[in-house]
Structure formats: structure tokens, C-alpha cells
């Protein structure tokens, strides 16, 4: 029996039901695989009968000890460092990116195209290449080790101008006639940005804030280099990683898990509340008007 005749035989509804079932089974399997590590970490963070890794998932004794003990370590310090870095970066980077996108979208000046091309090429170099030089520069400025937080903010913000693509694309979709009308009524360029463009581009602003916040929040490589062993300058990723060295893993493993859960909280909250805008932001920039 050929395939088409089989489909006819089963009927449209039946075949759709089968394909839906298959898809759902697949999706459920994938999401289980994807969720298991998170699930384990959350459970391990509540395990209090021992502090090392064990061969079972469900704790034998439940409790909040791991969370309470976190506060007698350097964890709060790392958390604050990360938070300051992420918030400052999110604010500064958003301002810079929006100004950049607005300029490149609305202004026409001589070097506009070459500048955009130049930045495109610059963006092709992996950022890690600059790590050693940046380390040197920051060290000479005194912004490494215990003072790593301002140093990191500087590094993250300094390159942010180049991330204008998505928001420029979005701004391009807003009709220019709106600007022109406002200009005719006597608005300045800044007023146009503030009163016309920004209210229309809420999704893209939120998208920019979110991505700017996420970068520093999870950064490890740069942060590790720049904090260079000084606990006072570490972010959560670097600090928590140290708990997994042979020296500390058996003492701090469950605390590591609870730290991991706390790290995930702000990001999860942000996404839960801003998810609607996030999706619009990502897709909105792609539509050319």
C-alpha cells in the first residue's frame, strides 16, 4: 500500500492525531532532558544530610541550611558585585545603543556607511582576543582584583555601541514622516527620539535592557581574569566555580547548588515579566517597513 493511499485510508483527522502525538512525545522528552539539571540543582540545594555529591536525587533530609550558610560566605559580596555590574551595564549600554541606533537610522552623514561597515568588521573578531591587552590596561588603571567591578562595567559598556543592529532595524520600521511632522512642529532631534521614537519602540528598549543585563550576569571568562583570585572582586560565576575545586567541593557542593538557584532568580523574574516584549523585540527588528 502506498503512503498516500494509507493516509486516505486512515483519514485526515487520524493522521493529524498521530503526528500531533508524536510531536508532543518528542517535545515532552526534550523538555524533560532539558529540565532535569535544573530540577536536580533545586533539589540538591535543599539537601542537608551531607554537603558532597551523592548518587541520589531526592534529599533524605530537607532544609534551608544551604541558603542560610550562603550568607556567612563571600556569596553576598559576589552577588552584589554581579548585580551592580549588570544594572550599570544594562543602563549605560541601553542609552548608548539607543543613541547609536537612532543616529544611524535617522541621520545621514558622510561616514555613515563606512562606519557601519567598519563596525561590522570589528564585530567579527572574537572579543576574547582583546583579553590580555584589556587586562593590562585595566591593571594599570588599578581596576583589577578587588576593584574588578568598575573595570568590568567599563569593559562591557565600552564595546556596546557596536550592538546597534537589532534596534536600528526596528527604528527603520518607524515611518520617517512621523519625525518630519514633529520636526515641522518645532521638535528638536532629541525630542523626536524621546517623545516619538521611544514610546513606539518599547519592545526594543526592553530587549536591549534584557540582553545588556544578561551578558554580565553570566560572564565567566573576563570576570575570572580581571578578578584574578581576589574574592572581593569576583562575580557569582567565578566565586561559585571556586567552590567546585577539589579543595572545596565536598564542603560546598550543596551550597553551590543553592547559590546557583539564587543566581537564577532575578533573571527568571525579569524574563517572566518582560517575556511579551522580549519576543516582540527580537522579531520586530527583522520586519522591514
Amino acid at each position: 500500500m502506498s503512503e498516500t493511499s494509507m493516509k486516505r485510508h486512515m483519514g485526515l483527522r487520524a493522521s493529524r492525531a498521530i503526528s500531533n502525538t508524536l510531536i508532543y512525545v518528542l517535545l515532552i522528552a526534550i523538555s524533560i532532558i532539558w529540565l532535569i539539571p535544573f530540577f536536580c540543582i533545586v533539589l540538591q540545594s535543599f539537601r542537608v544530610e551531607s554537603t558532597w555529591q551523592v548518587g541520589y536525587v531526592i534529599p533524605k533530609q530537607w532544609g534551608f541550611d544551604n541558603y542560610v550558610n550562603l550568607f556567612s560566605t563571600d556569596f553576598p559580596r559576589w552577588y552584589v558585585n554581579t548585580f551592580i555590574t549588570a544594572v550599570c551595564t544594562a543602563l549605560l549600554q541601553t542609552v548608548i545603543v539607543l543613541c547609536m541606533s537612532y543616529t544611524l537610522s535617522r541621520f545621514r552623514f558622510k561616514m555613515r556607511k563606512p562606519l557601519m561597515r567598519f563596525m561590522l568588521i570589528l564585530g567579527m573578531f572574537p572579543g576574547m582576543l582583546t583579553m590580555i591587552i584589556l587586562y593590562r590596561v585595566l591593571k594599570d588603571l588599578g581596576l583589577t582584583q578587588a576593584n574588578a567591578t568598575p573595570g568590568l562595567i567599563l569593559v562591557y559598556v565600552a564595546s556596546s555601541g557596536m550592538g546597534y543592529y537589532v534596534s536600528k532595524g526596528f527604528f527603520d520600521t518607524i515611518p520617517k514622516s512621523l519625525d518630519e511632522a514633529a520636526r515641522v512642529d518645532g521638535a528638536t532631534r532629541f525630542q523626536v527620539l524621546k517623545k516619538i521614537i521611544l514610546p513606539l519602540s518599547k519592545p526594543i528598549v526592553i530587549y536591549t535592557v534584557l540582553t545588556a543585563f544578561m551578558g554580565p550576569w553570566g560572564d565567566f571568562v573576563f570576570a575570572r581574569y580581571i578578578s584574578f583570585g581576589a574574592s572581593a572582586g569576583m562575580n557569582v560565576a567565578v566565586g561559585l566555580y571556586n567552590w567546585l575545586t577539589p579543595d572545596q567541593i565536598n564542603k560546598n557542593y550543596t551550597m553551590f547548588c543553592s547559590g546557583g538557584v539564587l543566581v537564577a532568580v532575578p533573571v527568571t523574574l525579569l524574563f517572566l515579566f518582560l517575556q511579551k516584549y522580549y519576543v516582540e523585540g527580537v522579531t520586530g527588528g527583522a520586519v522591514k517597513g
Partner: protein
Amino acid sequence: MKKLLAVVLTVAMLLSLVSFAAASSLAGEYEIKVWVADKIKDLTEKQIERFNETNEDGIKFKAVVESQGEGDAATNMVNDVEAGADIYCFAQDQFARLLTAKALAKLGVKAAETVTATTDEGAVKAVTTGDGTMWAYPLSADNDFFMFYDKSVIPDEDVDSLEKLVEDCEKAGKYFSFDLKNAWYNSCFFFGAGCKSEWLTDDDGTIISVDDTYNSDKGLIAVKGMKKIVDSDAWNSTSEVSAFESNSAIVVSGIWYSKDAQKILGDNYGVADLPSYNVDGTDYHLTSYFGFKLMGVKPQEDKVKAAALHKLAQYLTGKDCSLDRFEAVGWGPANLEAQAEEAVKNDPTLKVVNEQREFSVIQSAIHGSWWDIGKVIAEEIQPIAADDVDGLKQVLQNYENKMAAVFTMSSAEKEAWTVIGMYNEADGFFFTDYSDGKETWTADLAMVKGDNGIWKTEQAWPMEAGVEFKVRQGKSWDVSYGNGGDNFKVEEAGTYYIVFDEAATTISLEKAE
């Protein structure tokens, strides 16, 4: 009267000198950074506090103690010596790397004498280079590996035989955790059979060659022994003691996990030196690496601070502090007096450490590539049948080939000509290892090949009259030229390129414009 006055004044002056000498010139407050393992971080803070209160020189340290495991400390120091800690702990095998990076300060004559007199002989050797200079303070003498086991599964009488242990684990359906996918652990089979693997360094601590006999009849015995465990379903390649929680009965690991293993196993905590394996009727006792943990002082610009730091390092590695660490985290002291304490002598884990030390090889500098070359042996022999001698030999041959490649220069490097010569006053770092001042004939200056076999230095260098040098090929003295048999000598001071004509084998100087 005048005479009396003179005498009084002289005495007064002498007294003032004496009292000046007594209130040591080291007195003062110093800000320092210290890296130690997390386990002893709080303890070290207390010990430095105690040093501040008790030292007779009036030294006060304001110390920032950061946790930095002995394994990582060297890597971080080498990355940026300047930003590294003033005092830091490291494992013995990192010694050569740190020397090369100039991250260790020499011990003074007195300090060296004290350390030699009060410290474990092997440890003293570990911190001394060929010319008799000492570079670090031995912190502990306990870095080997041995066996933690679960007494409820493994009968005590079986712990001497690898075969019996494997059998016990198989019978009980438990794992035998032995991290043979790690060169450090699997080397014990080779050393047990009598193989050698020693890396040789020059005076700077750079590794220049290796004396390795893995690929031999003894090596064959070793892989046959290793087969006995890697062929078993009970084998699990890890050295984490938390493996006891996931169905292991034995974990081969070291002193750093002794307290954790005691916590996990409770009353069933068993500890023993490594077992023997039997090949063709002969027993071979597994022979681990043995190393010391060391404490280093970073070279300082301020000589006074350097002296104060050396005092602190000496204190921290002395008897009292060693005993503190023994009590807190179970580390075996390198200090002889501390070793002689009853509590230390009778500690069951340290007893095993010392029993294993009888069957051990001192771990000195190891080339970074060895870890990857060695770790694959266990996996490579696994699919080969135990009686397939040729197959096993091939694994050893692969190992030897990879080891040989470590020191093979590329043919371009072998053919290249370089300049080597004496110290040049006009320019402090020409011809010389420039971090260390006036050493001569130590560093090769690269030349670039031009047309017609003419080699030339990449840049012109200021030279003074009387400077001597030669050019040589492949950085070895097998082929070298100067002026006839003598060195080439600069007649007139100036800034020159050095030019070497490969065909005519003549050297000339070309004045820079």
C-alpha cells in the same frame, strides 16, 4: 674629665648602636597578599595575627588572605607575577614553572640553614636547585595517593592484593574507583614495575629532556597489571571520594580528601596504602608519585619587606603552624619536630601516607604535555585482549612516539642560525636573559634568512667595543662560527646588524643608518 667625657660619649654612642641593632630594621607595617587553600584560609589568618603579636622584630602584617588551591596558584602566578600574592602555596611539581617565571625569591643564607636543619630531608631537596640555592619553604609532606575503602565491603586482609580487591568489588556489585584516565594515577603501575619517567631541567627550570622507560619489558608488565582492573566491570575512573555515595567500595585518592572520606564513610572508614598486582607470579607494589606542598615568597622590590616576608613564611612553615594544620585539616607536616609529635606519628591516615611514601617516586617538574600523553593509556589498552602482547606493546610505542615529539624541533628551527654571546653594557638585554642582569652566553638572538643564504638580525643593536659572540645553528654548539676558532669581536662601538653568510661562514657587522 675630658677623657672621661669622651669615654662616656663613646659608650653612649656604642650603646645607641647596639639598641639600634636590637630594634630590628624590619620593624614596620606591611600590606601583603597571601594565597592558601580554602581549607586553611581562616587558620592562616589567625596564624599571621599570632605572628604579628609574637615576633620580636616589630613586624606587623596587614594581610589579605585569599583562597587559592595549590594546583591553581602556580598558573595564576605565572599569568601575572606582579599581581600575584606575596606569599603563596603550591604543589611541588609546579616548582620549575614558577622558577622560570621568576615568581620565587631565594632564601637567605640563614633561612636556608634553618630550613635545612628543621625540615624533612626530601622536602629540602625538593626546594633546592642544582647550584644549592633554596627557593621555597616546605609546607607539608603528604602529597601521594593511596586507598580509601569501605570496611563493610572490603575485608582488611584483602587490601594488599589488587586482584582480590577487584574480585571483592565485583562480588559485592560495587565500584573500584581508580582514576586511571589520569596520567598521575596510572603512572603507579609503571613505577611499580620499575619504569622511570623523569624530566630533566636546566638551571633556569626549563625542561630540556626526558628519561622515560615506559616502552620496555617492565612497561609491558605494568599494562598487563593495569588490564586486571580496566577489564573489570567494577572499574570506575574517578578520584572523588563522593563516589562512595554512588556505590563505590574503594576510592584511590589522597590526603586532601581524608576528612571528607571519614565524614562520608563514618565507622566504615578504612585506609590503606596501594595494593600489589601480580603478573606472571611476581608481585609489584603500586608506586605513587610523592610530592610536597611548598610555600613561596614572591620577589620584592622592597628588600626590607622581602626580609619580613621570609620571616613570616618561615613562621608559617614552622613547628607550631604545621601542627595547627595537622589538627585542623590533617596535613602531614614537613617540619621534623612536628613530625616527631605523638599525635602525628599515630595518625592512621598519615601512617598510610608514610607507608605509601616507601613505595613512591618524587614528583618534580613534569612537562605540561605529559598529562595528555599519559592519560590515554588506560583507555587504549581496554579493547585489547589481555594476551595480545603486540597490541599492548603498540600502546606503549604510541606513548613513546608522542613523548619523543615533545622535544623534536621543527626542521626550520634546526636549520636556523642564532647569535649568542657575552653581556653587552651598551644595551642591557642584548645576548642575555634580560631579567637576570649580567648572565652571558645564555640566550639566543634570532636571525632572519635573506637571499643567497645571508642571515641577519631582525634589528640593529647598540654594541660597545670588545663585545664577543658567535653564531650557531639549531641552538646547539654542534655547528658554530666566530672569527676562525675564536669568538667574533666588535672592534668599534656602534649600532649594528649582525650578518652571517652561510656559504662563506663569515660574520660581518652592518652599520645601521
